[in-house]
């Protein structure tokens, strides 16, 4: 109480009305701190679940801290490997109604979305000629094991268009041997360009400008081609710096989270509970 009232008095004594504790640090100090912590450059890609919500109203320091504690606790019990959109991933989850009590699914990761405990990823594969997509909650405790069979990226950060692509682009062998990624080498980018099935498609891929589609324009129906001029073409979005700031993550946040992860790891290692490391990067490994 006393501290509170004294804190409120600070506004009388100093000329500046803003509170220096809450103000953002200068970019130089953050960069120095990032070097000290050993900041992973690809942090937002490897840990999209540790980013802040793009809806600013939903950002709350306390809630995020509690959420991150839960996430780290879970990561101590299950090994969540590094994987990207475009990697081939196998997930083993327990299911009470199956005879084997567990289910393994292999597929290409086509989407990673949402932040925190809400984080989801979608795997896609073609089974007996039928495209199957399974959405997993990353922190669902029924997931027993996540394996990255092939660590690679594609040209896009969202492969939702595979649903309209020829089935051979999303067919993967369930008995695929995992391919080891040599530590310290950059993540390979698979530059496959996908051929789409004839239109109609689920979405108008010709206007999204996906790099991984081969000639989406000629596949589009004349109706939509004629409509292009009437549609909002979001070409200007890449110049919208404010939108990029609002939706992207800041170095300050990344460094703070990385510190929390490291502190958590060190505590658990010191207590002799586990030797698992949460903070890893295949490209930055030595």
């Amino acid at each position, binding site marked *: *109480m*006393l501290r*509170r*009232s004294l804190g*409120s*008095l600070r*506004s*009388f*004594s100093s000329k500046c009305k803003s509170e220096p504790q809450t103000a953002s640090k200068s970019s130089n100090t953050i960069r120095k701190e990032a070097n000290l912590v050993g900041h992973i450059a690809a942090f937002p890609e490897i840990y999209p679940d540790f980013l802040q919500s793009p809806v600013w*109203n*939903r950002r*709350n320091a*306390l*809630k995020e801290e*509690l*959420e991150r*504690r*839960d*996430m780290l*606790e*879970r990561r*101590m*019990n*299950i090994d969540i490997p590094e994987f990207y959109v475009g990697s081939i991933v196998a997930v083993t989850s*327990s*299911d*009470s*109604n199956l005879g084997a*009590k567990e289910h393994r699914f292999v597929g290409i990761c086509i989407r990673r979305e949402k932040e*925190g*405990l*809400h984080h989801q990823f979608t795997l896609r594969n073609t089974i007996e000629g039928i495209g199957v997509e399974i959405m997993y*909650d990353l*922190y*669902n*405790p*029924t*997931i*027993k094991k996540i394996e990255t069979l092939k660590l690679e990226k594609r040209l896009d950060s969202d492969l939702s268009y595979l649903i309209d692509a020829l089935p051979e682009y999303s067919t993967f062998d369930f008995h695929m041997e995992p391919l080891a990624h040599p530590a310290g080498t950059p993540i390979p980018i698979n530059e496959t360009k996908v051929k789409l099935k004839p239109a109609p498609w689920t979405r108008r891929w010709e206007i999204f400008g996906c790099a991984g589609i081969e000639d989406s324009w000629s596949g589009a129906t004349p109706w939509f081609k004629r409509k292009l001029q009437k549609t909002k073409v979001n070409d200007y979005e890449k110049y919208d710096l404010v939108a990029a700031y609002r939706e992207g993550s800041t170095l300050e946040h990344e460094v703070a989270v990385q510190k929390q992860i490291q502190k958590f790891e060190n*505590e*658990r290692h010191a*207590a002799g*509970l586990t030797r698992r490391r949460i903070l890893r990067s295949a490209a930055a490994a030595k």
Partner: protein
Amino acid sequence: MLRSLVTGISSSPAPEWAANRLLVATCISNTQQRGRRRTLTPVPWLPPINEPAHSNSVPLNDTTKKLLEKVIEREGTRFGEELDNSKAAITDIGESTRRVGLVVRKIGMLPQWTTNGTRILCTVLEVVENNVVSVTSPEDWYKMSAIGKRKAFNRNGPMWKVTVGSINDDPTKYSVGYRRQFNRAGIPIKQKLGCFLVTEDALPQTGQSLDARHFVVGQYITATGKTIDWGFQGGMHRWGMRGQPTRRTTKSHRRIGSVGSVGDARIWPGKRMPGHMGYEWVTVSGLEVIRINNDKQVIYVKGSVPGDIGETILLKDCVQEEKKLKKGPLPTWIPSLETISEESEEEAAAEGTIPKELLHNETFSPKIFRFTSPSIVFTDADAKRAAGRDKTKAKIAKVKK
């Protein structure tokens, strides 16, 4: 500002805030119609809460500043005075007993999982510095206010009005009238206030601090708050109307359509139309408390609660017949009650190997999955049983042994 602060302290027999309010209420209350869905103007008969801005802009010299510091310090001196806690206990709660509630802040929504793997979306509520501001007896309340006339002696018997404040704030922002009620209770100035109806057997003491453990994990609660303010919205969003076809329609895709053409061919009051949506008081009852973080004073409630993130919400015990609280801290939780729940802590310590210092002090509902435990593995016992006999096979009589 300064003058008002000093008078607030020195002149104790100043005109009563409550009496003042009654006086003004009798004069003005007829001019404004209250009790509508939402009221966007402050109540005219209550004194202003915030100190007018110009009084803060007066430059202060050093001696004045020091005096002001002293005054503010003295305002909070009674805080932490010993309260008589001999009555507090974890006991059975009677049918007619109504406990106080808490004034909480909604800080977000998180998924949690049950031990059988189902996902539950929870609302996370933070209990910020809750204190009892005042306790008004039903007689006083009846005399004092129009609301008291309606609520002090209701069908559930006489009800005390307990005002709870939350979130400490800078006293210089507020007017004398507003600050006086906190000075009387000897607690710091609060940003948010909420009132609860309480029976005599569950009366807390003035100035008492309230804890998140006032609620028990597994109990059901009622949440009251103002819904999200959507502003002026059309009929499709506000009332869920269907709108009109997308094709072969011009400029009427989202309009409500024909109105008042049946019978008397007029529009009756209450016709659903576009207008202001949200920012109404809404109560949701029967929400289960699933997890409580005692260190951070955070309550996880199953389901959603009215209002946007960051809004203030009133939480109280659910009064639905089957969802009433049977046993809990009465009148409220105090630190000395902690020893009673030691058994469950021992159990928790036995099952997990993680030392206590590394974890928050938390209470979980038994059906909630703890992230410290390993992944869920099912056995044959967990599989869903077939509802009846397998009708594809012939019926065979059981042989008795």
